């Protein structure tokens, strides 16, 4: 009986919000329109590229001229990346930096001398030189382009690292099994490392395509970043609206009427919270379904997406209930809710790539469900599955539980029907 009443209250709220035209405009139409706008800005709908971003100008300064430095240059100049990047190879670092300063290049990738020998051991001595790192100079006015270039570079470095570790492991196994003697170790290690590196880079998925666990090729789509950003921003509107309904119900006397029915206040509060959660889930699923159909947007692994939608709705609902608990009038909730929606939208990475923003912004972004949700949706869109998004799912769920506990304590202290 208790669960039936909880569901009854929640479904009633869901029905009411879907009969409110102005709420529907903000819940569903606004994120669609903004997503279309962002897609248009990035060229997603112009048909020029599959990703919406093309021919990113990048300057490579290769002073290494070793195997790895050359491999990195080859990768950026390969046919796979021809549509995405427009590389220029220079030998003068200062001249390259000027191109970035003049906004003629999105970034400079500087491969210092000795980079290859700092990773691949000398075949004779088995030694490696001191650690030398590739330097990346980003153009602050092109955050999305630099983010993509940085991702490509990071993947290259990861594969080199994999190859180096593989070489070490192979040599130690060969030594342990007596298949080689210690004097051959350096040469064998260098050969294996180089081969692994070559194979790894040759097989690189550093293109705009990612390979999912199922082996399906997934196209990187700029809308896969924009659409969740907008959906999550307007999710905050939905939960604030839902929280506001708790106060509105008190004002229109339906909450006191519920309280004099044979229903406990805990159950009523639970029903209201569940109603906010259901509305949030419905909003996200409609937006995901709509963008999939209209924009042919790929949201990634279905199971992962559903779990992430539930977790994002829990996290956001926590904020909505907190607003309703702390604030005193529907007007206050509407005003503060709108402000929270915009601040969380900005802070959560809905408009900018957070990796290009200062560390303190990145730190504060972590209080928003937007940032965690966007992490999860981006991971799924790039081919991740449920196991890759466990952290955002756990954080969002925990966030919702903690915020709801704080709200429940607050409401218990002040009374459900106090406003």
């Amino acid at each position, binding site marked *: 009986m208790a669960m039936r*009443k909880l569901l*009854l209250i929640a479904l009633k709220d869901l029905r009411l919000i879907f009969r409110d035209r102005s709420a529907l405009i903000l819940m569903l139409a606004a994120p669609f329109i903004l997503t279309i706008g962002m897609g248009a800005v990035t060229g997603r709908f112009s048909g020029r590229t599959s990703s919406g971003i093309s021919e990113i100008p990048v300057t490579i300064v290769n002073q290494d001229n070793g195997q790895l430095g050359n491999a990195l240059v080859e990768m950026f100049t390969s046919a796979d990346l021809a549509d995405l990047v427009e590389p220029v190879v220079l030998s003068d670092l200062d001249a390259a930096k000027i191109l970035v300063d003049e906004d003629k290049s999105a970034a400079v990738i500087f491969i210092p001398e000795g980079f290859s020998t700092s990773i691949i051991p000398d075949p004779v001595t088995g030694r490696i030189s001191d650690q030398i790192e590739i330097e990346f100079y980003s153009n602050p006015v092109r955050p999305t382009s630099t983010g993509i270039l940085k991702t490509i570079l990071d993947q290259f470095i990861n594969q080199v690292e994999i190859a180096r570790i593989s070489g070490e492991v192979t040599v130690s196994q060969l030594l342990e099994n007596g298949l080689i003697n210690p004097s051959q170790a350096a040469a064998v290690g260098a050969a294996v490392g180089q081969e692994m590196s070559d194979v790894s880079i040759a097989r690189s998925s550093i293109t705009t395509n990612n390979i999912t666990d199922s082996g399906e090729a997934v196209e990187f789509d700029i809308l896969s970043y924009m659409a969740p950003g907008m959906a999550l921003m307007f999710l905050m509107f939905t939960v604030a609206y839902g929280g506001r309904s708790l106060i509105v119900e008190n004002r229109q006397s339906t909450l006191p009427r519920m309280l*004099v029915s*044979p229903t406990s206040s805990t159950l009523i509060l639970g029903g209201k919270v569940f109603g906010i959660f259901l509305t949030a889930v419905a909003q996200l699923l409609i937006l995901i379904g709509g963008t999939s159909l209209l924009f042919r947007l790929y949201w990634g692994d279905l199971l992962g997406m559903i779990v992430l939608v539930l977790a994002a709705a829990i996290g956001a609902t926590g904020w909505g209930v907190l607003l309703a608990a702390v604030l005193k009038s529907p007007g206050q909730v509407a005003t503060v809710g709108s402000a929270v929606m915009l601040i969380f939208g900005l802070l959560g990475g809905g408009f900018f790539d957070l990796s290009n923003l200062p560390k303190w912004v990145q730190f504060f972004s972590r209080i928003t469900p937007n940032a965690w949700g966007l992490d999860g949706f981006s991971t799924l869109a790039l081919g991740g599955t449920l196991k890759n998004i466990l952290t955002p799912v756990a954080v969002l769920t925990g966030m919702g539980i903690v915020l709801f506990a704080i709200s429940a304590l607050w409401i218990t202290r002040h009374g459900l029907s106090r406003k």
Partner: protein
Amino acid sequence: MPPILEVQNLVKKFGDLTAVKEISFDIKEGEIFSLLGPNGAGKTTTISMLSTLFIPTSGDALVCGHSVTREPMQVKRSIGVVPQEIALYEDLTALENLRFWGQMYGLSGKSLNQRVDEVLELIGLRDKARQRIKTYSGGMKRRVNIGVGLLHQPRLLFMDEPTVGIDPQSRRAILDSVKELNHHGMSVLYTTHYMEEAQELSDRVGIIDHGELIALGTQTELTRQVGETDTLILHIGENEDPQHLADELSKLKGVMKAEPTDHEIALVTSSAEELIAPVVTRADQLGIKVQTIDIREPNLEAVFLHLTGRALRD
């Protein structure tokens, strides 16, 4: 038979303000009991405590034998509440509202459908049941508001000023439906500041003012408190000063109390007919034209005036 409601020294304080001061009364099974008093007298606060919405500061009340402080859930199951405000969802239809509230009171399936149907018939809105509440007139909303309180067929119905702000026709329909419900055995606690409603409906009346129950009994018992007095109502012009005339008339022999309101003066007297001539003469001397004079037999208005020195509408 034990009373269906037994109120024992009920007190409610909000900070320094005492809204209800140690009131005690009871309601017998099948009785209509009215709490009559002006706005702000403590009627709604009393109903809120009796319906378990407010926790009493002290005292208790037994509803169908259950304490409002110790057994609130049993109390809630026994009562129906019709609040003063329209406590309905404007974006839901009447049918959806009734179904929602019916389920909140534990109805389901066939019994829910049957009760919703019966209540729609009772409130006369079967034809418009699928219209949203926001399209209804004030009177229609009031009828649905009452219907919600009747869905689970409570033994005791609390009605808090159910006729406020509606047209005379809807008011008549509501008063008739209260009598009809009572005729079928439902006990009713009815609060109002309209003396006529209390007089028409009630078996017994409690008069409440400033949180205190100042009189309690049947209408006959209450009017007996006023004694063998009549009330003379003088209607004067809009530009006249009722206070000045009341002050002057209070000095006349036989006038027990003179109470001015907007364009009227109420004179409490033991001999109304004998007082008419001197009253008209004195008003004439003061240059005030008396337009009409009514003589009222003792009623609840007079009782309130007698007990508080103020008219009920003040």
